[in-house]
């Protein structure tokens, strides 16, 4: 009799994930962009660049970058910003750091809140479910897009008056709070419906008949069945919030110059798209690469967690 090692479901899922080539490639791409984003200060220093310095000798008298592809050179791999003459590579690195941070914090917080409230509503039902359900209905019916724009200035002043964060810090905080506040009901609804169908399954009753506590049933019996949903939702909402941050920065609600994000760079690039198409294309390509990699990674993780897949 050969010895069989007890493998946890996580180890089995990881083994399955390792065999998925698309998943591995997209994971590497995502990690690469995350490394670029969070290693931005280090990397720009290695290249001898700065995101705030202006390289005016790279621009012609009209303020357009000299050379092909918006001034692409060994020194400036993504070219220069028309007008101000900042290095696009370092702008995008620092920008993607902000975009990633907003997307990750927002998605994780919205999914966390949605998971807790969704399971609570679906498992306990009754009055708890009614209260959570009506509140999320209210948020769904709210004109959230308009509210974020209209309320962001007073909210930013309010947050600044607390004295913890200022300027762009306060603006980002407000943006994240709004995103999370209006973002969780979608996931909570999804989880609620799944929790309701799960709790009718006999294995939940089996756990109850064995004397398991509600906490154990929720964390050990229901949660493992809900993680794949959370991960798929995460993979969809990460690029979604990345784009949303860009939209609100574009509209002047999010981050302000001189800081840069994808939204700000793209809205600036639109002004120059005829004269300097590379300035528009490079951030677009980077954004697409990030979004695509995130989506493929989400698919791969879902397949790895799906025990019925093989």
């Amino acid at each position: 009799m050969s010895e069989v090692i007890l493998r946890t479901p996580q180890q089995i899922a990881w083994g399955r994930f390792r065999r998925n080539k698309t998943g591995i490639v997209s994971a590497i791409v995502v990690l690469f962009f995350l490394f670029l984003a969070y290693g931005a200060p280090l990397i720009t220093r290695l290249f001898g660049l700065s995101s705030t310095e202006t390289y005016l000798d790279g621009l012609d008298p009209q303020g357009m970058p000299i050379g092909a592809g918006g001034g692409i050179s060994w020194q400036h791999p993504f070219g220069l910003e028309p007008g101000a003459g900042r290095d696009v590579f370092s702008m995008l690195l620092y920008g993607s750091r902000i975009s990633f941070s907003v997307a990750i914090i927002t998605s994780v917080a919205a999914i966390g809140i949605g998971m807790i409230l969704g399971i609570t509503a679906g498992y306990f039902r009754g009055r708890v479910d009614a209260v959570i359900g009506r509140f999320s209905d209210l948020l769904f019916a709210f004109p959230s897009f308009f509210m974020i724009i209209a309320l962001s200035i007073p909210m930013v002043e309010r947050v600044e008056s607390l004295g913890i964060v200022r300027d762009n810090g306060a603006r980002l905080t407000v943006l994240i709070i709004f995103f999370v506040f209006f973002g969780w009901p979608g996931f909570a609804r999804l989880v609620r419906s799944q929790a309701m169908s799960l709790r009718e399954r006999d294995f939940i009753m089996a756990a109850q008949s064995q004397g398991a506590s509600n906490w154990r049933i929720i964390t050990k019996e229901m949660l493992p069945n809900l993680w794949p949903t959370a991960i798929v939702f995460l993979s969809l909402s990460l690029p979604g919030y990345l784009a949303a941050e860009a939209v609100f920065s574009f509209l002047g609600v999010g981050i302000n110059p001189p800081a840069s994000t994808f939204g700000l760079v793209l809205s600036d690039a639109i002004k120059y798209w005829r004269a300097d198409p590379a300035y528009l294309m490079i951030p677009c390509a980077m954004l697409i690469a990030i979004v695509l990699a995130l989506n493929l990674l989400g698919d791969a993780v879902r397949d790895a967690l799906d025990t019925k897949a093989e």
Partner: protein
Amino acid sequence: MTENILELNNLTKFFPAKAGGIFSRAKGEVRAVDGVSLTVARGETVGLVGESGCGKTTVGRTVMKLYEPTSGQIVFDGQDITNLKRKEMKPIRSKMQMIFQDPFSSLNPRHTVGTIISSSYTIHDIEPEGGVEHSVRELLTLVGLNPEHINRFPHEFSGGQRQRIGIARSLALKPKLIVADEPVSALDVSIQAQVINLLDDLQKELGLSYLFVAHDLSIVQHISDRVVVMYLGKVMEMAPTRELFANPRHPYTKALLSAVPVADPKMGRSRERIILQGDLPSPVNPPSGCVFNTRCWKAQDICRTAVPETIQVTPLQTVACHFPEV
């Protein structure tokens, strides 16, 4: 130590029948179990039979305290567990376990067989002799599965194998009573026999008592020592298996037995086949008097007005009927 592992005294379970919405109010109640009294002796198998919707599953679940009983008394192992709180029930739950009907929904698809079977140990924080993994392997062997399959997921098994996993889970803490809720009705006939024989062997080996809920009379006849016949939440007749099948006293039992197919076609053609008229009445609004009077061919006026007393026809056989067969 009392003789009976389980005693139900006049157990009732009513479910509120509600209209939906926030402003819902009770519109009446579903009388799923209505005054059921029965006993299960140590080492005995009691079969609980009746057609769909007669409340037999509810009895099983109420015994397990998955439902709070509306009234009546549940005595398990000499202890009244009727009003025990969730926390107080926990130590008792290790002595009573349940086997479920559907082997596909009774096992968590995201847990390995090892996790499923050892769940009792983790819930009750018990370290079995020789370690958890060793015990799980022993249990797998006991129910006729390969102990090497400890890391597999439920979907890698057939229905019969999955039911064996469910049985192994219920045996982990060496229970005294197992409530088996139609444990074989979802399986193929050939597999049914295997699982029934397994349950039989385990009973002999481990001294288990079974409350065996089923609607298949031939299986009940095979496995049970005594049979309880239910109709619309009430007990119609209770008797040792041989007596009940040879000499049914209640008209409903007689009708049920006449529906069992017999292997010999000559005998099958010659015997009397009783076909009940009408449908099962709604348990929200059960008939007055004897609940069976709407479908009984022997019903008289008294059946519509007076609830029949449960009478002792022989020392072991009881029947709730105004006009029992002789």
